[in-house]
């Protein structure tokens, strides 16, 4: 009797903690975000009135929303393209016989473990106009002290550098793991056939790690949509520069929800973000299925 109960019920008890927390802090907030977004809703006092799609109508004509969307996209492109290209190169280097492999891997991974806040603070110092190391280096070439936060392009570049520094090594190790799973015989066969090393890399290695490449692009995009800490701490104030030239979507969400207490509007922004993430995740799923099916 007890043994039967153990076999029937215990598995559910084992997975229950996850699902209780997932329902409470995952599903419920997401559903309620949708509900909130259909209201004028004050964060501290609660719902004011049902307003239908008014928050979304406002959102799609709000220049500040488009500004944040454009900044987020721009920082994403500037940080992801060089980052993944560099990660690929680093992985190729690490894939060769090296002495002290763990030490190399560790040194490459270390930036990813440093608290984001600390990263943002030291890079803000590095890019500082008056005491910054980068500014000092630029003076060797005769440049004047430069205010990195003042222009959109340079601020995006500054934030992107932080993201690149944190994530390149991590992605390199993911690529490395994928490369090592590609059968060595393929490399050797190609080499015997007289293919150059670049050719082997392009025709054997790259196709072999395609699912991982795709995975990192999607994960970077989902991470890029959520970018907050780096731009928030880059420079004085919390709105991403005097003209919001580096305010991201999540910063705009935070401003509306937790500085102006406009919960309804913040919820609408969240829901748009969620839709963007869902699109990215399903693109990933479809592409992976197609690639795996073909391979």
């Amino acid at each position, binding site marked *: 009797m*007890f043994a039967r109960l153990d076999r029937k019920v*215990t598995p559910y008890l*084992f*997975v229950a*903690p*996850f*699902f209780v*927390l*997932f329902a409470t*802090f*995952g599903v*419920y*907030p*997401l559903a*309620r*975000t949708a509900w*909130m977004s259909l209201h004028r809703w004050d*964060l501290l006092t609660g719902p004011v009135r049902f307003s239908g799609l008014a928050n979304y109508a406002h959102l799609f004509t709000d220049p500040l929303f488009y500004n944040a969307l454009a900044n987020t996209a721009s920082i994403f492109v500037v940080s992801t393209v060089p980052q993944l290209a560099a990660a690929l190169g680093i992985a190729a*280097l*690490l*894939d*060769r*016989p*090296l002495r002290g492999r*763990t030490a*190399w*891997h*560790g040194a*490459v991974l*270390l*930036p990813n*473990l440093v*608290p*984001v*806040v*600390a990263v943002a*603070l*030291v*890079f803000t*110092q590095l890019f*500082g106009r008056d005491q910054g190391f980068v500014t*000092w280096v630029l003076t060797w070439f005769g440049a004047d002290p430069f205010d990195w936060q003042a222009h959109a392009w340079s601020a995006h570049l500054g934030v992107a550098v932080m993201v690149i*520094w944190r994530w390149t090594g991590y992605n390199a*190790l993911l690529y*490395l*793991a994928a490369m090592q799973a590609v059968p060595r015989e393929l490399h050797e066969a190609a*080499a015997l056939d007289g293919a150059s090393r670049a050719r082997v890399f392009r025709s054997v290695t790259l196709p072999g790690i395609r699912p991982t490449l795709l995975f990192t692009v999607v994960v970077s995009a*989902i991470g890029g949509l959520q970018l907050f*800490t780096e731009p928030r*701490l880059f420079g004085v104030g919390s709105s991403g520069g005097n003209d919001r030239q580096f305010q991201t979507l999540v910063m705009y*969400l*935070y401003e509306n929800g937790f500085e102006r207490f406009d*919960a309804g509007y*913040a919820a609408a922004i*969240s*829901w748009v973000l*969620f839709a963007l*993430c869902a699109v990215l*995740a399903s693109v*990933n799923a479809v592409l992976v299925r197609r690639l795996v099916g073909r391979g």
Partner: protein
Amino acid sequence: MRRAPGVLARAALLLVVVGSLFPLYWSIVVASHDNAAMSARVPPLLPGGELGHNAHAVFEAVDFQAAMANSAIVAGTVTVSNVLLSTLAGFAFAHLVFRGRRVLFGLVLGSVLVPALLGVVPMFELVSGLGWYGRLEAVIVPGLVSAFGVFWMRQACREAVPRELVDAARVDGCSLPRVYWHVVLPALRPNALVLAMLTFLTSWNDFFWPLVVLDPVESPTVQLALSHLAGGYYTDYPLVLTGAVLGTLPVVVLFALLARKLVTGLVGGRVNP
């Protein structure tokens, strides 16, 4: 036959490592000088002798002791709980047969990619409704178990715990909770260690959610205290980066102790032929 990297490749790798380490080195340089030294036309390039003095100033400026203690409590609790509960669920998904298992595991997979911060507004409402605003429960409870952890431990359980072992233990009259405690947990210790380290780091480094539900002065975590330190109109970098160095130190120590296991856990233990 793969060739060992040539001079150029070695130089490139070395450059990457220098780039990885330089911002950390630079934090120490700034943290060990005073503001006057950093404002010189040519900034100092080697560490100075002001670190102790600056550290003292950090503890004067914000309640850094409380911040360290709070972060340790939060990250410690979340880590232990996430490892135990993720292993529990991962074991069930890997080796136990029950109705709805596939659908439920599909939900776990689906939720890995959904960022928790999208529900942040109702989360705030929920947590303050529970009376947790400004209390550590607000950052501990939502992190007690993670989808990533469940996924990771299920995989580990499939590879490291043979189903026959579980069946044999049950034939001998061992109940499932005892199988979990005496067979599964000990067998998964290396995987659990990697998950523990990743969880600890994520929790220790978290900024967005603590910013929403905690008070940077009354209930600071290390990251909140740091951003508070940097938040004035004028930023005193030696002070701020001293805080950053102090707040990064536990992470670096942990990494130094466990780097080998973490790297093998992420890259896989495959040895190149």
